[in-house]
């Protein structure tokens, strides 16, 4: 342990050097989302700029700080000044920023959004006072976007591995005790108390036990786990060690989806560093604890996020769930006691062991302690990754943090394909496990998808069911056949061929699938349909009775046209139209040839003149008929 303490001292010195930098530092957010927005090009441009101007400055790659809608993000810290954050940077603005900051020493205020000091700087507000950040409580995400995840020293300087050191000074039972007092529940979806699962595993005799980190993150629309691994890799691995120590495991496995190559790369780097620092292997930090971590890449199957399917997959089989009991905590991987924890659960543990259970109890509410990360996406102004205390209301999340919706709000979908769609009347619902369940939805892993009046709820329900139907492993009949049947009915409704009885059939089928399915996939698959039936029944009826899709999504029920009075003749729709259905000379209202139109919506999406995009280039079939 003393060796590590020495390393920490020097890591802290190194970090102080960064904090009190003598040369400028350019931080660039280069997690997958940053890269998709162009961060890598900015890095090479910055390096080029530094070389060409012959200045000494450092470029540090950091992870994702959360407000992904502002990406790519570039921060610059000049000696003696607070770090300034710039948003939506492209190559052109980058050059202006670099010139202004690195050469002239003044921030380029036009593109600056926040500074990391405690007060305004040159008119740039403190970053954490920004509306999106202010209501957040960052525990799991505390290092994200601030440190270089590929540099273990930076993690150590942030008190990294302190939680592990504290844990190793306690008995495993005491560690479980702390986790129990902290009251943390599994962040992978079901919210089962973490300490309970661990206790069962701890008390099960067995030579070999396993700790698996579930980084499958199969929920489409969710990226909290990816972001955390990419931005604070060591925190997750430290959490695995703490959990492994508590349950008596000597082997840890990260099961991660192959679609996350950067996260996999960073895990490999971090594991190598841990070995160099004596944090893996035998007698870790002079204790009796032995632990190793390996990585298993998933191969693309949503159901493999389910515990028993995940185990089958690691064993080299088809990822089919099996019925429980026996629970994996008693008989899991290769028949050995196994604990599977979610990335976020594990990422929270170092904080709890570093600061104590009492500290953690300050966050959240009775029965729902702590914070939860969410990915906030869809039709919302400020998309990204957020962390709030449990018990925060949907309204605070959507409007205060997310900045609201451009068009009128319609629904929020929580919990991914297993969750439900909640309507406006639930906006004041506190986000905790029980409240969401009582509204017919679930917490799930934390995907929040916001929908406005341009989203058709029937279409969304069909989308989710189609997803689960395709991802069903097919082992049990309610799930395999039932979901297919539901998709067929929904298809008919969106084609305008639904009949009123369909609604009852959907409900009965849904209830049966929930009751009769073997695993969580089937047991929750009907939720999106059941909740939309409950809260948006009218929209189903409109589709069925009037052949009307008010959101202008269901192709068979809509037709596009140009609103002559609003068209400026800018030609962008002419260019976007893949079939040449729109034509017209520049500066004159365009024509749309309905016989050529394939209703791809490209013109609708591309039209910049909100007036047009707003009330649509659409005649509803119902109108047309009359």
């Amino acid at each position, binding site marked *: 342990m003393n060796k590590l303490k020495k390393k920490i001292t020097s890591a802290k010195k190194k970090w102080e050097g960064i904090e009190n930098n003598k040369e400028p530092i350019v931080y660039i957010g280069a997690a997958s989302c940053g890269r998709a927005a162009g961060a890598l090009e900015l890095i090479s441009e910055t390096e080029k700029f530094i070389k060409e101007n012959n200045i000494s400055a450092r470029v540090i790659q950091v992870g994702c700080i959360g407000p992904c809608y502002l990406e790519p993000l570039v921060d610059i810290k000049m000696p003696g000044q607070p770090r300034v954050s710039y948003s939506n940077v492209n190559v052109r603005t980058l050059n202006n920023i670099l010139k202004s900051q690195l050469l002239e020493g003044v921030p380029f205020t036009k593109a600056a959004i926040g500074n990391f000091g405690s007060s305004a700087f040159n008119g740039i507000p403190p970053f954490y006072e920004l509306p999106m950040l202010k209501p957040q409580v960052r525990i799991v995400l505390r290092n994200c976007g601030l440190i270089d995840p590929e540099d273990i020293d930076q993690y150590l300087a942030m008190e990294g591995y302190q939680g592990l050191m504290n844990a190793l000074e306690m008995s495993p039972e005491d560690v479980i005790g702390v986790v129990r007092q902290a009251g943390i529940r599994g962040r992978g979806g079901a919210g089962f108390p973490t300490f309970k699962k661990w206790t069962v595993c701890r008390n099960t005799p067995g030579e070999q036990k396993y700790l698996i980190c579930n980084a499958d993150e199969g929920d489409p*629309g969710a990226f909290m786990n990816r972001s955390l691994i990419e931005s604070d890799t060591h925190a997750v691995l430290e959490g695995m060690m703490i959990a492994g120590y508590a349950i008596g495991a000597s082997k840890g496995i990260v099961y991660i989806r192959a679609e996350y190559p950067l996260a996999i790369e960073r895990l490999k780097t971090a594991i190598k560093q841990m070995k160099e620092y004596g944090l893996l292997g035998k007698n870790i930090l002079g204790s009796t604890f032995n632990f190793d971590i390996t990585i298993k890449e998933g*191969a693309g199957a949503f159901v493999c996020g389910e515990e028993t399917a995940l185990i089958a997959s690691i064993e*080299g089989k088809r990822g089919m769930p099996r019925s429980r009991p026996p629970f994996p905590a008693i008989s899991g991987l290769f028949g050995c006691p196994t604990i599977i924890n979610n990335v976020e659960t594990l990422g929270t543990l170092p904080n709890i062991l570093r600061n104590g259970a009492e500290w953690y109890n300050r966050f959240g509410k009775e029965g729902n302690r702590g914070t939860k990360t969410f990915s906030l996406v869809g039709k919302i102004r400020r*998309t990204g990754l957020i962390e709030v205390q449990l018990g925060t209301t949907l309204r605070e999340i959507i409007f205060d943090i997310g900045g609201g919706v451009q068009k009128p709000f319609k629904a929020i979908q929580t919990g991914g394909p297993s969750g439900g769609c909640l309507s406006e009347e639930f906006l004041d619902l506190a986000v905790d496990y029980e409240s969401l369940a009582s509204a017919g939805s679930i917490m799930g892993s934390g995907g929040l998808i916001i929908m406005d009046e341009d989203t058709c709820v029937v279409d969304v329900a069909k989308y989710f069911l189609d997803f689960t139907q395709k991802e069903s492993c097919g082992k049990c009949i309610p799930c395999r056949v039932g979901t297919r049947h539901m998709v067929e009915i929904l298809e008919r409704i969106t084609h305008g061929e639904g009949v009123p009885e369909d609604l009852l059939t959907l409900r009965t089928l849904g209830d049966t699938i929930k009751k009769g399915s073997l695993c969580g996939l089937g047991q929750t698959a009907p939720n999106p349909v059941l909740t939309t039936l409950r809260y948006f029944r009218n929209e189903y009826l409109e589709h069925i009775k009037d052949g009307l899709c008010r959101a202008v999504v269901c192709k068979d029920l809509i037709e596009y046209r140009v609103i002559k009075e609003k068209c400026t003749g800018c030609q962008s729709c002419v260019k976007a139209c893949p079939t040449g259905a729109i034509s017209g000379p520049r500066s004159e209202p365009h024509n749309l040839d309905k016989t050529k139109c394939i209703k791809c919506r490209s013109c609708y999406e591309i039209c910049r003149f909100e007036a047009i995009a707003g009330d649509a280039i659409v005649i509803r079939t119902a109108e047309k008929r009359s």
Partner: protein
Amino acid sequence: MPEVIEVIFEKYQRKPDQLIPILQNVQREFGYITPESVKHISRYLRISENQIFGVSSFYAQFRFTAPGRHSVRVCLGTACHVRGGATLLEMLERELEIVCGETTPDRRFDLERVACLGCCALSPVVQIDADIYSRMTVNKLSELLKQYE
């Protein structure tokens, strides 16, 4: 046994749980799971070819035909769906004259769908080879394709 396969096998123990990592490595090497490699894996791990096909066909990742020069993957995750991902896929199907899951006759592109690339905040998202492009529109995408030969 071809040398490439031998080199792959050297990295993995002779245990059935190594099947998926081996298949992944084979696919990285050859671009797809070749019939010959299945034979060799079967012998190496002492499991039947049937079983290997049973496992590999279960997972979306594995393919059994030679890939094109570039892979185009359109995200149809929830965020991308809500923001028009399907339009992008339809446009690609039209422009490339293939349906999702196929390869263009000139072997230039593979077209696939993917459940979510984890960049939902910047949806809709398209991945071409290793690069992820965000905030895609039909026009941008059509331009982008021209960069790939």
